[in-house]
């Protein structure tokens, strides 16, 4: 059984404690969350979570079924694979001098990343892409010296007509209790 990274997309009720319920369940079942990204979905009162975990297919399927049992979780799908677009955003603050600033800019250009802030001894790069792209750019910039990095964690969406959202029915209750 090979342990690989799995991307789970979950539609959850936007209620206090839902993130805690989710995180607590992964912890209890012995799963280490590699990244988690939460935000609003296209439906009011429903949030979309993207969770990346490592494990064998059977283990991840078991945890997916456990997550699905949470009352606040409306749907959860394992979208790992070819038909899925995954993106992450990173801000990388790189040590820069007047001597190497243009070299940094060239590297950033190759990756179609943007420089969003410049100061006397640093530049801040914004890069969007899949995990691999961000990791590659990070490795190249490491040569200049990295002061800070912030990554959003992966978000994912299936290509074409396949949907991880709630296509079958819209939940009647979508009011936040907050």
């Amino acid at each position: 059984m090979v342990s690989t990274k799995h991307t789970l997309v979950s539609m959850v009720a936007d209620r206090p404690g839902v993130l805690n319920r989710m995180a607590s369940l992964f912890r209890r079942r012995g799963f280490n969350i590699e990244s988690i990204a939460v935000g609003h979905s296209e439906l009011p009162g429903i949030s979309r979570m993207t969770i990346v975990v490592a494990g064998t297919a059977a283990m991840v399927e078991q945890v997916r079924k456990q997550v699905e049992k949470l009352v606040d979780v409306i749907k959860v799908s394992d979208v790992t694979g070819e038909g899925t677009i995954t993106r992450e955003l990173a801000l990388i603050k790189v040590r820069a001098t007047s001597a190497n600033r243009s070299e940094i800019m060239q590297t950033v250009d190759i990756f179609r990343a943007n420089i969003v802030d410049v100061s006397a001894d640093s530049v801040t790069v914004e890069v969007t892409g899949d995990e691999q792209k961000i990791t590659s750019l990070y490795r190249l910039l490491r040569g200049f010296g990295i002061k800070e990095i912030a990554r959003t964690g992966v978000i994912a969406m299936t290509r074409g007509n396949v949907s991880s959202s709630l296509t079958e029915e819209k939940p009647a209750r979508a009011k936040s209790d907050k």
Partner: protein
Amino acid sequence: MRMTGAEIICESLVKEGVEVIFGILGGAILPLYDTIPRYPKLRHVLVGHEQGAAHAAEGYARATGKVGVCMATSGPGATNLVTGLADAYLDSVPVVAITGQVTRALIGKDAFQEIDITGITLPVTKHNYLALEASSLAMTVKEAFYLARTGRPGPVLIDLPKDVQINQAEFKYPERVSLPGYKPTLQGHAAQIKKAANLIKESRRPVLIAGRGIIISGAYDELKRLAEKAQIPVITTLLGVSCFPESHALSYGWLGMHGMAYANLAVSDADLVVAIGMRFDDRATGRVSGFAPQARIIHIDIDPAEIGKNVRVDIPIVGDARVVLQALNKLVTTSKHADWLKQLDSWRKEHPSITIRDCEELLPQFVINKIHEVTGGEATIVTGVGQHQMWAAQHYWFDRPNSLITSGGLGTMGFELPAAMGAKIGCPDETVWCIAGDGGFQMTIQELGTIAREQVAVKIAIMNNGYLGMVRQWQDLFYEKRYFATPLNCPDFVKIAEAYGVPGMTVKSKQEVVPAIKKAMSEPGPFLINFMVKPEENVYPMIPPGAALSEIIEEPSKEVRSWSARNIP
């Protein structure tokens, strides 16, 4: 109609058909308690400790099939409920717990008796609520009861800040819930059921393993029909005991660590296991890699997450046991399996497992056997956890549906007395025997006071061997008899019972057993018998920890002790 939060809770409980609440009050739940007396339909039973309230609610729920209700105040009151909620969670028991909480403005400030009980109970409840608005209380109660009793039942907790109990809101009890994230599957998948029927038809050595799911869904008749139509032997789990009459020709006991040898051998040799409403607990399967090695497995369960969790499954069917069995019974063809049943019968003859040695000493097995005899098998048996639990499950023959109430998954010592109290309050016409160990009994002994005050006619039999017996057995077998911390200094239980207002007697010899049980039965109220049983009696048969079902050991011998050399997981 405008009402206070406390009134809304009481109105909602009445709407849900609640008859009894087990609980203890305190500052943070006082507004609610001040309101309860105005609702005469709600009987409140003041217990001695909140753990007792949770177990009593469980006992009530397990005996009646209805939702049990317990209440406690904030802080320590709430945390004391946790063991009972965890017990209910692991055994799928419908319980609603209502806890008081500090006023909303104080939440998060470490106020007096403030504790994050929704955070604490997150992993041991099916769902929980921190109710922040009086206006949503009615829906919260409605949802809590709905979640507790439907699908795979379980405990639900509602945490209720003090000011929410006082605040006013419009009350209208909702007619239905809207929970888009909660839709239990009841109907099994038709194609899967068809496949299962075919597999049953092809099988030559099939067994049914029936769990508590049969009891929860009330699938007694459907199980019997399947067993009889296809002539499949029925083996139960410990929690499944009494889902199928044990005197039935197709009943072959229960499996697992202290189950019948023939049951374990049958599962080990089977070519098909049809598992219904059970979850392949490690105490039931033994070493998983050695579980039913030749069998294909059909697993019917209402909880999709149970399927494939512990053992590989060939045909998964998610659904309610009763609904699925009804569909399956239509497709199953009549079979004989005569050779297989003959084989099982010969195993049963060779490995009777459940025999009682003829000796002068007072054996606990003998006591259980006599309780069965005197009650004519008509009692509901409630046990705690340990040796007495195994002996009760082995030596009381259960023919009546849902007549064994025991703590399985969590294995909670001290479950027995409050659970028996709850069961008797829920089913006042039943004879309820609480079979206890001397260790566990002292963990919830304070409920003797509740039983005396409320005159709950529970009959209590303590198997007093002066040890934490099951642990002593493990020390005996696997730790070279180093009896550290297992010998007990038991008080005189009869004196304690009398002090609480429960009559009782001590029994030391075999001759006194039957008269004592008869005496207990003739008392109109509760009665306690302290049976001074043989101190170092072990439970057999036994599957050593980490062994396969087929490696069951039936008699005390060196063979068992040789396991101590192995690594016990």
